[in-house]
């Protein structure tokens, strides 16, 4: 049985699937596959997602209508039965934390910085962290007294359920604007709003 994923554009299914049945992976139940009548998936979308989803109806609906290509392993597909990964819009992966710290930057050196950490049990640590471990966009936030999160855990792939160890440092981002910046952004927002309103009006006229 192939586990490939089709490029899904609903009206092309007929060309890709020679049978009248479609196999659908119900990712909420792991690798469980459902076999549904093609017509059910194509013609009765409401019935379909009423039956196979609960709180995510809206996502399902949009995804069925989507022509987005997730990835294509068409060559691996069986001629008789295609496997459709469903929903087509990739859901968010899960992150399960095994250890987390709050940190504050104490001292900064050329290639590393010293920080004080506290974990969920209020245990305290002093560590040295290489700057290379930071995301490049967080380097600007590296200042004495800056606060950051350090998480160690695993990422669980929403589709395959594969787990991968992970560790990340992320600096807190609570910016403060200057009055000048506020004025600039207000002008930008006004222009954006006008543009969108114009587009909406044109669409209404066209409709």
């Amino acid at each position, binding site marked *: 049985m192939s586990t490939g994923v089709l490029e899904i554009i609903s009206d092309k299914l007929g060309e890709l699937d020679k049978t009248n049945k479609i196999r659908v992976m119900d990712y909420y139940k792991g690798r469980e596959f459902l076999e549904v009548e093609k017509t059910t998936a194509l013609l009765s979308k409401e019935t379909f997602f009423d039956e196979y989803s609960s*709180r995510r109806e809206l996502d399902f609906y949009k995804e069925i209508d989507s022509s987005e290509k997730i990835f294509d392993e068409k060559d691996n597909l069986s001629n008789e039965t295609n496997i459709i990964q469903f929903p087509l819009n990739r859901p968010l992966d899960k992150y399960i934390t095994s250890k987390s710290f709050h940190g504050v930057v104490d001292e900064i050196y050329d290639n590393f910085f010293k920080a004080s950490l506290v974990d969920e049990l209020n245990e305290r640590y002093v560590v040295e962290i290489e700057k290379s471990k930071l995301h490049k966009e967080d380097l600007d936030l590296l200042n004495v007294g800056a606060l950051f999160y350090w998480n160690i855990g695993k990422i669980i792939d929403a589709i395959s359920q594969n787990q991968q160890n992970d560790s990340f440092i992320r600096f807190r981002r609570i910016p403060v604007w200057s009055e000048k910046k506020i004025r600039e952004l207000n002008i930008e927002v006004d222009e954006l709003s006008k543009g969108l309103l114009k587009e909406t009006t044109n669409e209404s006229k066209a409709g």
Partner: protein
Amino acid sequence: MTLNKSKIVEVKHGIVLVGNFNPVIFQPHWFSESGIIRKEEADSAKVEVVHPEVSMFKLDWMRLNVQPMIFSVDTIQDAYYEIIRDFSVGTFRLLQHTPLLQLGINYNFIYDIGDKKKWNDFGHKLTPKELWGKFLNEPGMSAIKVEEKPIEHDELGCKETTKISISPESKLTKSGYGIFIQVNNHFQLIEKQKIRSATTIIDTLEKRWDDVMSKSKDIVENLIGEIS
């Protein structure tokens, strides 16, 4: 039953703000330009809708939905639950003149009990059937909601209520014998408070967050502990 991590199907942390918003503002690049998220994140954001009435996008770790009266952000990745707080605080420290009226700090939890008898017993414990059995044939619990009397925080200018909802959850759990627990911590400006800005609600979000999260997790763990 003690909480077994492998039976946790989903934990979702969410923040909902009620007020007056201009959805058009809330686009990924506005957040990165403002320093609230990274540029790389904004570049890879999946924008679903941008319209004067609604703005919706997803990052790898969160989902945002803004409508004229609602700002809602949530994450199912527990490593990021504090980051959605920073995201909300950062946003309305900048948009400090946005009138905010209410705040919800939500903790949603889906747990696979994995055993029909335990699942039924838990339902009976929450809603004993002696009364309902007099009127209904084999009554079963479909949902229960319980809330506390509001607590006034004069120092914050808000009143706080915790509301708990529990319902069976069969579709998202492998065994089909799961439960969905929602702990909604609701904050509302006290009446004498004048609505001039985002400050009162955002201060409340910052000051009450740790206690509320800890309380929500305790509630869920205690409820799970009642499953026998």
